[in-house]
């Protein structure tokens, strides 16, 4: 019987809920593991889980410098979608979507995946044509996509949205992916942590990597604030801290820039926004959480940053876009805002690869899109680590694609990370 079930809820309610086991252990580091994963975020934890579940590697440690869920896994806007144009991206993200669809059962942990759909708004006929093209590309890959034509049709789908001809950027339609949605981000971290722990993975919190152990060129472990840990394989999945961590291994340059992305949540409202909506005349994505807060975000601040906080221009920009879309939200008060550090790659697509040094494996370059990728990222990274070769779904995401000129530039803006 699954450890979390209606029966265990009942049973534990009779004992005052005092007998639940902690969701994961707090072990001391062992001197040596088969695999050490640096970074206890969503991607590191899912990698550990799939290493154990799919590849039978359980002598694995996940090293987290803070507490579990303190990084980007707890700082995103929780959107899950697979509405990409390029086949390398759509196949990868659709695999992620399929894993999301079974994730709560697989982990025996409710990640509250809610397939409420995502609607990308179009504001010009040209933009709608572009959406039709992307929608067709998605359907060609077997992914659900529906073109919504006309402001009235959009208005019926999203009450409260200004679909009038007087809107600042009048809406002419949109692209809907019905299977997209949101998930509870903390539950994703906790669920993967618990499921990996149950399979024998050690999750080591407050364990910051301070350097890499080397034998010649080869990486053979890490030095940490909790002592040296040796490993046959060292995998790095640290998102915005990638630049910092690979420098410890002597890799001074990467096709990555770290940028701050802010996110916002309003006070709680009654259910008012039942789908994910994105503004097409600027950059804004919004949904309503199960607690009732409007969760939204926009552009990165646009300059290199490792500070987990941003500046006012983006706050003003995002708020004005939101109000242009939903005039009725103009008096809603902001509850919180925060920042996370994005690992912006040079073509806007991720990097999942062996290297850059022997004994080392790297997972980074997620730009804005890391949360929805969490399951597939771990799935493919685990395969790369276990087999020493890329998974078919991430074969295009290798580090040497920049040298070989085979970029996956969804937006076609070139090597300017702040524009992706």
């Amino acid at each position, binding site marked *: 019987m699954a450890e979390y079930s209606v029966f265990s809820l009942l049973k534990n309610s009779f004992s005052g809920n005092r007998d639940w086991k902690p969701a994961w252990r707090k072990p001391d580091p062992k001197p040596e593991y088969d695999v050490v994963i640096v970074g206890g975020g969503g991607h590191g934890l899912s990698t550990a889980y799939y290493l154990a579940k799919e590849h039978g590697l359980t002598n694995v440690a996940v090293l987290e410098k803070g507490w579990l869920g303190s990084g980007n896994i707890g700082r995103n806007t929780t959107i899950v979608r697979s509405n990409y144009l390029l086949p390398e991206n759509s196949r990868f993200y659709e695999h992620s979507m399929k894993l999301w669809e079974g994730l709560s059962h697989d982990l025996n942990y409710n990640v509250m995946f809610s397939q409420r759909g995502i609607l990308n708004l179009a504001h010009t006929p040209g933009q709608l044509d572009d959406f039709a093209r992307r929608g067709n590309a998605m359907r060609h890959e077997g992914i659900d996509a529906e073109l919504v034509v006309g402001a009235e049709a959009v208005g019926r789908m999203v009450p409260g949205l200004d679909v009038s001809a007087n809107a600042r950027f009048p809406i002419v339609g949109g692209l809907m992916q019905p299977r997209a949605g949101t998930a509870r981000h903390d539950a994703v971290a906790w669920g993967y942590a618990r499921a990996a722990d149950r399979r024998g993975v050690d999750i080591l919190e407050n364990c910051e990597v301070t350097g890499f152990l080397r034998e010649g060129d080869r990486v053979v472990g890490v030095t940490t604030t909790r002592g040296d840990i040796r490993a046959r394989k060292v995998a790095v999945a640290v998102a915005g801290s*990638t*630049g*910092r961590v690979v420098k410890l291994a002597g890799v*001074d*340059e*990467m*096709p*990555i*820039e*770290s940028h701050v992305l802010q996110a916002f949540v309003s006070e709680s409202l009654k259910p008012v926004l039942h789908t994910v909506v994105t503004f097409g005349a600027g950059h804004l994505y919004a949904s309503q959480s199960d607690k009732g807060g409007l969760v939204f975000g926009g552009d990165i601040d*646009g*300059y*290199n*940053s*490792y*500070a987990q906080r941003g*500046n*006012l*221009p983006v706050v*003003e920009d995002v708020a004005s876009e939101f109000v242009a879309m939903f005039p009725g939200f103009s008096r809603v008060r902001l509850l919180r805002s925060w920042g996370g550090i994005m690992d912006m790659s*040079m073509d806007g697509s991720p990097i999942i690869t062996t290297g850059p040094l022997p004994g080392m494996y790297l997972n980074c370059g997620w730009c804005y899109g890391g949360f929805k990728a969490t399951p597939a990222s771990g799935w493919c990274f685990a395969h790369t680590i276990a087999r020493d070769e890329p998974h078919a779904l991430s074969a295009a995401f290798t580090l040497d694609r*920049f*040298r070989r000129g085979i970029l996956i530039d969804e937006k076609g803006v070139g*090597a*300017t990370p*702040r524009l992706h």
Partner: protein
Amino acid sequence: MLIACPYCGPRDVGEFTYQGDANRKRPDPASPAGAEWERYVYDRTNAAGEHREYWQHSGGCRAHLVVTRNTVTHAISSVTLVRGDDA
């Protein structure tokens, strides 16, 4: 964040446009494609700490600037004109 333009004094960051990493050195334009160009186009030091970068005072005097800014604290230690910058 305030950036002290050499001409206009301290002004809000909203008046400026970021133009990227100033640590990179453009190879000789006549040189053939190869590792040097690749590095220039794709690789970044991405420093956590002092970072030299280009900004333009696009909403002011339009001067192109080299700003040295700490990417962890956002503190700015120097602002100079691009003209005459030979670092």
